[in-house]
């Protein structure tokens, strides 16, 4: 009976989590937002002080598949609850694509240790690729998504040589310079729309027009439901991809490269090869996510892909816990939703938000959900 019992416990946890998220997403006035923030913080502190966290962790690890299914079900549940609330759906979609992009950075930094300060640039390359192809060619959207990823990976390979030759902060500078360069380049190049950017036609796929409201049995729901489902699908695919890598010999090799290049090389692992693989794979994922994001946004301009957006991506990864897949999703939700909820404090929102993130980095340097030792099989032993 243990498994059924466990399942119900998992389901209970998932229910609590998603009930909280639903209420939080729905909160509008300052008092209820403040109350939910306090409730969330209080809840986490209570769990920690009751000593419940390790138990929950064990529970989740032992029932990984079930928990993943529950998370997907819960997310679909949230989408269903907010089916008519365009704004919340848009935020959810943003969380999904950002998570997917940060998972790409996670492959680079979290696994192979290749630092990338130009995440938003590759995100933008994907977006601009999609915009250019959708505007000028009859390319099907699915293909443009792939093209976004391919372009981002190919342009990223220009940086490979300097990134491979350098390390640490020197390598950081290379990608930083690229981020700054690309934003200025987008701004001054007329054929990419210059500072005004490009508009994208709405996504049409398999005869479904993504810009039209969703009609199910005569009821109209927000068109963002369709985008959310597409974004969620991308996130699930990226997540599975990242998890598969982690649990394969590839992830093992990348970890070795990250932890000690010299030792890895001594054991016959090609440092160059794995860094190239991770960097390219990561950029591909980021590019695909960027392409989908720009389709959902339907309008992009260079100010969406600045150096500070790249830093946002890295902050998400750091806050979640470098290398931790679930951490990435949790941190993205936090970093996307909090500034939005802070709209109520208007001009003070960035001050408070930055101070909050600063405190989190100082007091929890390993992130919200630090990476755990790998398990090769879902629910398997260490």
């Amino acid at each position, binding site marked *: 009976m243990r498994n059924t019992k466990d399942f119900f416990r998992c389901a209970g946890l998932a229910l609590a989590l998603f009930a909280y998220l639903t209420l939080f997403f729905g909160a509008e006035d300052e008092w209820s937002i403040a109350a939910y923030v306090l409730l969330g913080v209080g809840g986490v502190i209570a769990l920690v002080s009751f000593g419940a966290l390790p138990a929950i962790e064990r529970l989740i690890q032992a029932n990984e598949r079930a928990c993943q299914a529950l998370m997907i079900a819960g997310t679909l549940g949230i989408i269903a609850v907010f089916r008519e609330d365009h704004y919340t759906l848009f935020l959810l979609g943003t969380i999904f694509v950002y998570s997917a992009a940060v998972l790409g950075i996670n492959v680079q930094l979290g696994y192979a240790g290749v630092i990338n300060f130009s995440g938003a640039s590759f995100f933008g390359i994907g977006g601009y690729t999609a915009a250019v192809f959708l505007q000028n060619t009859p390319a099907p959207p699915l293909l443009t998504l792939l093209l976004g990823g391919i372009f981002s990976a190919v342009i990223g390979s220009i940086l490979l040589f300097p990134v491979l030759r350098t390390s640490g902060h*020197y390598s950081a*500078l290379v990608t930083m310079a690229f981020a700054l360069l690309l934003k200025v380049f987008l701004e001054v190049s007329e054929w990419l729309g210059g500072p005004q950017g490009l508009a994208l036609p709405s996504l049409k796929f398999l005869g479904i027009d993504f810009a039209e409201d969703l009609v199910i049995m005569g009821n109209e729901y927000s068109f963002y439901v369709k985008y959310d489902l597409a974004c969620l699908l991308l996130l699930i695919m990226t997540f599975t991809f990242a998890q598969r890598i982690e649990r394969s010999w590839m992830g093992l090799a990348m970890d070795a490269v990250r932890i000690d290049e010299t030792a890895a090389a001594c054991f016959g692992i090609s440092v160059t090869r794995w860094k190239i693989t991770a960097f390219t794979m990561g950029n591909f994922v980021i590019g695909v996510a960027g392409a989908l994001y720009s389709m959902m946004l339907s309008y992009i301009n260079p100010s969406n892909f600045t150096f500070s957006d790249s830093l946002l991506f890295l902050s998400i990864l750091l806050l979640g816990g470098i290398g931790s897949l679930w951490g990435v999703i949790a941190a993205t939700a936090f970093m996307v939703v909090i500034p939005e909820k802070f709209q109520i404090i208007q001009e003070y929102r960035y001050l408070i938000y930055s101070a909050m993130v600063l405190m989190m980095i100082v007091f929890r340097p390993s992130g919200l959900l630090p990476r755990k030792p790998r398990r090769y099989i879902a629910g398997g032993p260490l």
Partner: protein
Amino acid sequence: MDISLLLQFFINGCMLGMMYALVAVGFTLFFGVLDVIVFSHGDSVMVGAFAGLSFYLLCMYLSPGMPVWLVTLFVSFAGMAFVAGFGMLVSRFVIMPLRSAPALNTLLATMMLGTVMREAVRLFFPDGSNPKPFPRLLPDWSWKFGGALLRFDNIALFIAGGLLIVGVALLINHTRLGMAIRAVAQDAEAAQIMGVDFPFIVLLTFAIGSAVAAFAGLMNGLYYNEINFNLGLLLGVIGFSSAVIGGLGNIYGAILGGFVFAFLQVFGTVAMPFSSAYKDVFAFGVVIVLMAIFPTGILSERQSQRV
């Protein structure tokens, strides 16, 4: 191109280079001692400029009849002391707690700190979201060489900045205190075993680096006679780039990097007639190429890696 124009470009480039070098020195010092990148350093420059302005206003309020040279000295030293103090607080409460965490943590934490500083000045300095005039404290003398104009403040600020950097270099290379800083930079644990007061050295380094940043801010104010809350944003990135191009941990590298970057920008603007907006694309493109050629900076510490 006539020679006086070249001279003018040279003067402009030198001023810019000195400013970048001053910012880069801080980056290089912090990196040398703690292996960290302090991204709020550019915003320390901005705080330095605003502190200078505040002390000037205070000065005018308390004793309006003070001679200008005294005001200038007071504003400079008070501004530098203020930012030095602030830098020590930052090192004590943000940098030191993150010492055992990965370097990326410090980088992002200080980036957030920079945002906090920037937004705080914007919101809490009176009408802080608009640019502020900075008082003209230096004499208005200038000399003409053909079409080129050499001003007294060019020379004064350049020399003062140069002296400050040389002073810091001397302090680090030729005093007992400097020896302690270098010892910590080489091996913090070994230095502690030899009796170096590690926390004190860290605080001291941050005080020095921040004071230099404050001077860069004051120089910015005195040179352009205008300051704004956003001025540290790009200056921070450029200062970091300069420090890295020159080779982190090397003060002379920081100077070299600062001037390299400044002249790259000047050259980019001069050489590209109808699209000077591409000059940043050019400058950062060259930075990437430079990094590919000199993976550890132009003046790197030629050390073999310990395994």
